[in-house]
């Protein structure tokens, strides 16, 4: 069955060639006349102040970890979804329990303010 993936391999090859080709062609064809002003990061015409490499808000970390948890939940629901009619009520109850456990997690995060953005 992995033969079905053969066209994908071809398509990936074509796409990567396309992506690299675009950037390289443009690099060869375009004129370069650099000046110090031109190479400065564009920050609305101001001379950039301070470093970009600063720490940023811990909220993004919360988003990422919540994403992992609920992405995994989705993955765990997919095999059930395609077989829901064959598996019947007993598995429905088991999955409900699973969903409720994670819903408790969501409610906890919500109540603790982990979902607030200001």
């Amino acid at each position, binding site marked *: 069955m992995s033969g079905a993936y053969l*066209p994908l391999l071809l398509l990936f090859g074509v796409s990567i060639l396309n992506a690299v080709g675009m950037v390289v062609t443009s690099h060869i064809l375009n004129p370069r006349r650099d000046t110090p002003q031109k190479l*400065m990061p564009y920050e609305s015409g101001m001379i950039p102040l301070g470093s970009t490499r600063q720490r940023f808000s811990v909220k993004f970390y919360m988003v990422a970890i919540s994403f992992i948890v609920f992405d995994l939940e989705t993955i765990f629901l997919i095999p059930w979804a395609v077989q829901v009619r064959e598996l019947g009520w007993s598995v429905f109850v088991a999955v409900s329990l699973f969903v409720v456990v994670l819903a408790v997690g969501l409610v906890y995060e919500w109540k603790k303010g982990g979902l607030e953005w200001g």
Partner: protein
Amino acid sequence: MEPISGIWAYVAMTLKVTGIFTLVMIVVAYATLAERRVSAWIQDRRGPNRVGPFGLLQPIADGIKNILKEETLPATASRVFFVLAPMIVLVPSLVTFAVIPIAAPLPTPAGVVDMIIADVPIGILYVLALSSLAVYGVVLGGWASNNKYAFLGGLRASAQMVSYEVALGLSLIAVLMLAGNVTLTDIVWQQQQLGMWFAFPLSLAFILFVISAFAETNRLPFDMPEAESELITGYHTEYSAMKFSAFMISEFGHMVTASALMATLFLGGWDLPGSWDNAYWHEGQLISGFADDGSVILANPALWKTAATFAGFAAKTGFFLVLYIWIRWTLPRFRYDQVMALGWKVMLPTALAYVMVIAGAILFLDEVGLDWGFSYGLVLTGVSGLATFGFMFFLDRGKTISGAAVKEPQKSRVDRVPQPAALGE
């Protein structure tokens, strides 16, 4: 009719890959023109109409211009990643299309050809996998630019994309329940069998999916990563010439793929009303349905059927593309906290609850013994209609997502990293 085999299968494969890839690139190019023309019409302007008749050659002119323009590489940027980011952003947007069937199978002298690049057994999971990889190019571009606006844009984009990916995945679960398999050919086939497109029996999943797809593609009203009044142009601020073009192509590529996906999952894909065009591989035979006694009815593929179904698919995809542009000029941009609140506090719980409701309804209908078919779909339509009504009613109260005027000033409950002053809020 036999499926195509032998050497001709490889010929067909190569033709399909190059043909559909070229088609997607052309659609992407003309989507940029359509965006400008439709925007112009909505604002009572004319739009670009100088290059060729009705401006039809504009995308070619744009392409030539972008290849020949001067590129800049900011002195403080991380060079390798700065050059790598446009390529990384481009590839996922161009290969996702591979698992979407675009028309009914085409009969040729050598056998029947499926009008899909790769009918892989993981189907929709392939789309999910690639859309989860789309984050990297965006955040890398923003980070490598070493520009505060670009970095903020990249961060916003990644947080927003992962947030809505959850809702996107969960709204898919409902579709998979009715389809019974993850491949998109099966999803189209089950819509033909049910006698109605999934947009009706799964109306709430449809609405959630469309909203998530808008957020995933960073389009208005979710274009926080590029909010031009705040972030210049967000994560691709420092990019020029063809590298900028790569970001644009990727954005429109995602739009085209998302439109085709919405058409396939909820509007029947290439299916047209009636059972004359139904076709599905069942135990080595191309069938169009089952008779009452359980025997198969063989399908009768024809060139005109393939052409007609392709036209139907193109029309549905085009509808969603126009919807993208239409929404852009209809709704104002959200605030960032509203975007995140909508994703986590509204979409996620709603999708979870809806999945359980639909599962319960399906099991109940099977318990009652209702046959899989039109009336089955009607009952589900009723259930989903009620759920949609409840969802809209809840949203309309404006408690969870509200404008600044309604919200009383409150102290932030998630506190922040002490010093140095936190970025990205």
